[in-house]
């Protein structure tokens, strides 16, 4: 349907020979903000059914300065850095994604506070498609992950993890996240194995059996295992091959699925995970 509309639109545009009408802007959003913050990000998805184009600049009256920002990783420190860009490519028959943690438009020197449910005008200038006026919707933070799932910025995060690893910043000491991730994976794996082999624990264990299991855990953990301890200390540890969960897209509950968007070129699309539980 979307394609049909786009085709019809482009036919209309071509017949009037006004300007290239193949650029479409969706989900133009910014976040409600507290008073006093000097900056705000603007995010959107630009789809292009025509030849390659380029977003050259953005402008709005509500900020002193408007910049196109790339999000990148400092190869020497592993820190996230934003750099001003001279333009974002909009590929032929593709899309440009501006999302949190990725390329975005930065408003600097806000003249006023952005409030939920308002809109403000933004002028985009494209190399070929020319000037486009759009309205940016200011949304509550709870809506953000539906519009821009975390996967859209996973490229930058993956790169940061890779750079830090290369710099030896994670090798010396395992981070708490590595430990927790491994334990979650182990439980996941054990549950799957038990389900596959039909193993169930039909009978309630005797008090003695329970006490023995707890004692064995204490010894295995080299410390007192206690229900009130921090989460990372409660599960038994088993050696596991390092398989990062963070970079694997995990299965998405049905209620978090967002409407499909044009094939992203700026970020990898989430792929199904073999390890994931079946969806209802």
């Amino acid at each position, binding site marked *: 349907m979307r394609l049909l509309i786009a085709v019809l639109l482009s036919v209309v545009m071509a017949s009037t020979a006004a300007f290239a009408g193949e650029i479409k802007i969706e989900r133009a959003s910014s*976040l*409600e*903000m*507290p*008073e*006093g*913050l000097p*900056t*705000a*990000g603007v995010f959107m998805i630009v789809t292009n059914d025509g030849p390659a184009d380029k977003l050259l600049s953005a402008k709005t009256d509500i900020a002193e300065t408007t910049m196109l920002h790339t999000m990148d990783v400092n190869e020497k420190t592993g*820190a*996230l850095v934003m750099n001003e860009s001279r333009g974002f490519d909009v590929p032929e028959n593709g899309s440009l994604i501006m999302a*949190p*943690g990725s390329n975005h438009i*930065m408003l600097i020197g806000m003249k006023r506070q952005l409030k939920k449910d308002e809109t403000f005008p933004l002028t985009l200038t494209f190399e070929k498609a020319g000037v486009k006026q759009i309205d940016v919707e200011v949304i509550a*933070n*709870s809506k953000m*992950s539906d519009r821009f799932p*975390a996967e859209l910025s996973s490229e930058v*995060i993956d790169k940061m*993890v890779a750079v830090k690893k290369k710099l030896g910043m994670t090798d010396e000491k395992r*981070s*708490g*996240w590595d*430990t*927790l991730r491994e*334990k*979650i994976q182990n*439980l996941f794996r054990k*549950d799957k194995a*038990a*389900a596959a082999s039909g*193993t*169930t*624990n*039909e*009978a309630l264990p005797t*008090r003695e059996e*329970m*006490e023995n*299991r*707890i004692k064995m855990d204490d010894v295995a953990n080299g410390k007192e*295992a206690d*229900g*009130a301890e*921090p*989460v*990372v200390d*409660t*599960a038994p540890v088993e050696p596991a091959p390092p398989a990062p969960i963070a970079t694997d*897209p*995990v*299965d*998405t*509950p049905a*209620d*978090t699925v967002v409407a499909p968007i044009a094939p992203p070129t700026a970020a990898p699309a989430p792929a199904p995970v073999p390890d*994931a*539980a079946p969806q*209802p």
Partner: protein
Amino acid sequence: MQPRSPDHRKPRVIVFDVGGVLIDWDPENLFRNLIPDDAERRFFLTHVCPRIWNNQQDLGLHTWAEAVQNRIALYPAFEAHIRAYDTRWPEMVKGPVSATVVIKDKLRAAGLPLYAITNFSREKWAVSQNLWPFLKDFDGIVVSGEEKMLKPDPAIYHLLCTRYGLEAAECLFIDDVLENVEAAKSVGMMAHHFANPENLRETLQNLLEIDLVS
């Protein structure tokens, strides 16, 4: 981002953890009543429904209904208690940590932007915000179950900063779990390991140079 001096160490933004800091969540609060026997309760909370299992829901790996179903298949003898972990979840929260909530309100009154990063499943977060409306009063909240990321994964701290246009160096992060505090420091935030509200108040007063008592 506007440039800031590197020695800028007065926080401009406060980032809260929720469980253990603002509300007193502990499965013991519910199961102390349901399973009075110490050994049986401990076995249940370390083997049948361990914290790590709860983390799977925080990570958005399953819905609660699926997770409960999977767990009952493994431990049918504990079916009633496994269901209770889901359906009677609110009873695991003793209540708000009122002294911390007072501090939060005073910070708000002093005009500081307040954010939260919390390990919470989507479903239980919605329940909690309805039960304790002060959990809605933040300028921005990152909920692990919505993002498919979990503290102490550094990515979830970066997500907060990039989403809301914050500089890590201007944030003070507060959490009762040491691993989460260390992860916050690793991304460049200031961090406070929460032990009790009095201690937190003192730290904040020193850093912010404002009065949080009167």
